[in-house]
């Protein structure tokens, strides 16, 4: 008979834990009421106070853990390095090179790739998480939304060979990232990696920087004239650069922007060269 009673009172527990994550005040309120509840039931069931004390102890430990996370968690759990860029820029190749040091053939990504990345010479606790996000137009926005809060650093990868042809797309996506409100709030370091430098027609990072600057200037104009959207809310994006001046990357104060060159593919005799990316990532810890 007593056993049955105990069973009855078990179910509320998981739900109590659920609430705790919401806020600490709420937890306290609910705890006091649940203490009474338990007390009552314990008496009914004839269970002695020992078990009950242990339960309270557990609650307190849990509370502290939650609080601790609230206080310290905010910056240290942001250890993601996002690889972002248009489709076919070479993100997955770069990811594979960084993680395993080998090349793999790839297909258009449908999902993110995630792996932890140990920076040479850094403490284990400082390990970073590499996130390779898909670049196809139909899904990239959803994935940036999902992972942007984890960004300690963003590697924006550009295909230097097709850059001239795709410049409008490259600039538009970069513009979206640099003006995103919550990315601005956490202001991660950003580097623009000009990939596929092994190719003959690849543009150098100098050229890419200059042309991107010009194109971003135009995009800034057209985007500010764009129609507002159906939801009625005005766009809450951050203004890029300085109002009333031609855009320059040096005007972006929120991010430490850097340009670098790499090539991520290493077959058919070509050797990959991702040293600059590696050392940039090391600078994050």
């Amino acid at each position: 008979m007593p056993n049955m009673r105990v069973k009855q009172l078990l179910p509320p527990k998981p739900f109590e834990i659920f609430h705790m994550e919401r806020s600490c005040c709420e937890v306290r309120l609910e705890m006091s009421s649940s203490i009474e509840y338990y007390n009552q039931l314990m008496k009914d069931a004839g269970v002695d106070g020992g078990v009950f004390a242990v339960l309270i102890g557990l609650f307190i430990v849990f509370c502290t853990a939650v609080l601790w996370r609230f206080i310290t968690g905010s910056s240290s759990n942001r250890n993601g390095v996002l690889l972002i860029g248009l489709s076919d820029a070479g993100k997955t190749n770069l990811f594979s090179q960084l993680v395993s040091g080998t090349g793999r053939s790839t297909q258009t990504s449908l999902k993110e790739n995630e792996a932890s990345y140990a920076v040479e010479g850094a403490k284990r606790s400082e390990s970073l998480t590499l996130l390779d996000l898909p670049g196809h137009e139909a899904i990239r926005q959803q994935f940036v939304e999902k992972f942007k809060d984890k960004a300690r650093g963003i590697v924006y990868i550009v295909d230097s060979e097709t850059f001239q042809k795709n410049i409008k797309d490259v600039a538009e996506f970069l513009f979206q990232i640099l003006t995103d409100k919550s990315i601005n709030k956490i202001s991660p370091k950003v580097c623009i990696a000009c990939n596929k430098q092994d190719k003959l027609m690849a543009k150098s990072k100098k050229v890419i920087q200059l042309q991107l600057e010009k194109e971003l200037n135009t995009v800034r104009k057209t985007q500010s004239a764009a129609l507002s959207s159906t939801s009625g809310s005005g766009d809450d994006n951050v203004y890029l650069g300085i109002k009333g001046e031609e855009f320059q990357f040096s005007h972006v104060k929120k991010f430490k922007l850097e340009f670098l060159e790499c090539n991520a593919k290493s077959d058919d005799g070509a050797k990959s060269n991702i040293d600059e990316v590696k050392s940039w990532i090391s600078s994050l810890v």
Partner: protein
Amino acid sequence: MLDFFTIFSKGGLVLWCYTFQGVKTNFSEPINALIKSVILQERGGSALFNHGALQMKYKLDNEFELVFVVGYQKILSLLYVDKFIDDVHRTFRDRYRQKLLEGSLILLTTNFDFESMFAKMLRNAEETKTQQVVMKKFHESDKAKKTVKSLVIDQNKKDGKETENKANVIKKGSPKSITNGTGSVESSPKTQRETESPEIARNREKFIQKRTKVAKATMKEGKKAPERKGKLNRVWDKGGTAKDTKDLDYSAPPTMTNGHSNEQVEKEELTEEQRALCRNIRALDDDDEDEEIEELEVDEKKSSGGFFSVFRGLVGAKGLTKEALQPALDTMGDHLIAKNVAADIAKKMCDSVATKLEGKVLGTFSTIAYTVKQSLNESLVQILTPKRRVDILRDVLESQRAGKPYVITFCGVNGVGKSTNLAKICFWLMENGFRVLIAACDTFRAGAVEQLRTHTARLSALHPPSMHGGRESVHLFEKGYGKDAAGIAMQAINTAREMRHDVVLVDTAGRMQDNEPLMRALAKLIAVNSPDLVLFVGEALVGNEAVDQLVKFNQALADHSNVQNPRTIDGIVLTKFDTIDDKVGAAISMTYTTGQPIVFVGTGQSYPDLRSLNAKAVVNALLK
């Protein structure tokens, strides 16, 4: 004779790849085409895809996030690939289960040594097509009953969504293959006993038909055959064609009444002796059938009831099955239809979500209904997100620099708001300092030119020349009624080039999609003038009609132009958005059908009532 078979993670890392005789051809381009035009456009329901001379089939593993793609020459139309891909999938998964669970790093460092196993499976599959098949007598195996039974239940539940694989397996009449759920392939060579040649297949059909009440299965087969043909022909063009819709109609699930009547006809054709045989089995079956149906119903109740499904989620760490998903999918499908999504499209979306979720393992606290909703949400946002850059101002600037006008053509059926929204877009362009020429190519409807004249007058009153350095920033180009629209548009564009207008907006007459001569005229107008942007104007009030309109417009544009690469619709203007409350389904129907973005949304009758589409807000309204 497969050209290639490749296995890659959804993240895009190729794990293992087979090419015919080790040829070092690069197949990643057609595979990427498959990913971009089928998987990423939520056309996952049917799984054949043509690319040049290649035909591809794919399968998703949602538990380990893998994709299996097989490719072969289209003319071969191999029948064994359906089952082959399933077998390879199962074998690969079972063999590397441990590895696959461990994440990206392991995927990158593991060498998937799958060659010998694959070669054996392929040999089996290919050899069997030349062997004369000796069938195990169908009624001898008690599994046979099961096969048919499952089919019966499917029909009773009006479940048209069973995979092609399943149907194929059934029609091949290989009783073992279905129950062979987990066994590896080597252990059951019988499953491989399939034939390629159509005569053999036909003979076998007869054979089975005589045997038992598998009549039903063959009926299904008869139904399937035309559908299959349709699928092979299917072109994964952005537009989809009028033919497609017809083909697709075939695939509508057989209704219950239909199924029964057919069954009766078949039954009467059986000989007396066979009938006796049937009766025995049927008697046996009938009870089982009822039982199973009951079971399924209970299942259904459980999974739709929110409270119980919590515990289902807690207990079951098994992958989701189609059956488990079905009730939740049906609910969502009905919900979408209630929100004015075209019925066809709602069904295809649900199929696509099913493909994406089948086999997925639920998280601890998530229910099926929640998972389905979440996944549908993602898919809908994906559909509404433009697949290319839509920045018209940027493109206008570009042509301005090149010294030629940017031409936008508006088309659509009657009274949807072409002229009104053309005027609104004109206003927006003028606000941004561009000079616009309106070409009145609606030479058909009385008053159309006067309507545009009024708009022009009002717009230039809003933007007097004094605001633009003494130059009128909007002009009307008109040539009265009854003339050839294509010619007028041509003259307008030439005028614009001379007068240095930045943009030409071409208004065309409204036309019904079935009006052949008018559609031909529109195709001509577009072919002759090759505008930079062809916008289809459609009202948000439209329901199932939306699909028909768009498909036919696209088809007409493709058919009636003699150019190599015909121009089709580039974008959509969704009008009267203010009149529909939260029944925003037309947005989905239109983008799904064309694969093109909604560029403008008309939200009222005055000039500033023009918006861009907010995909997330629309999807929220849709799933509310």
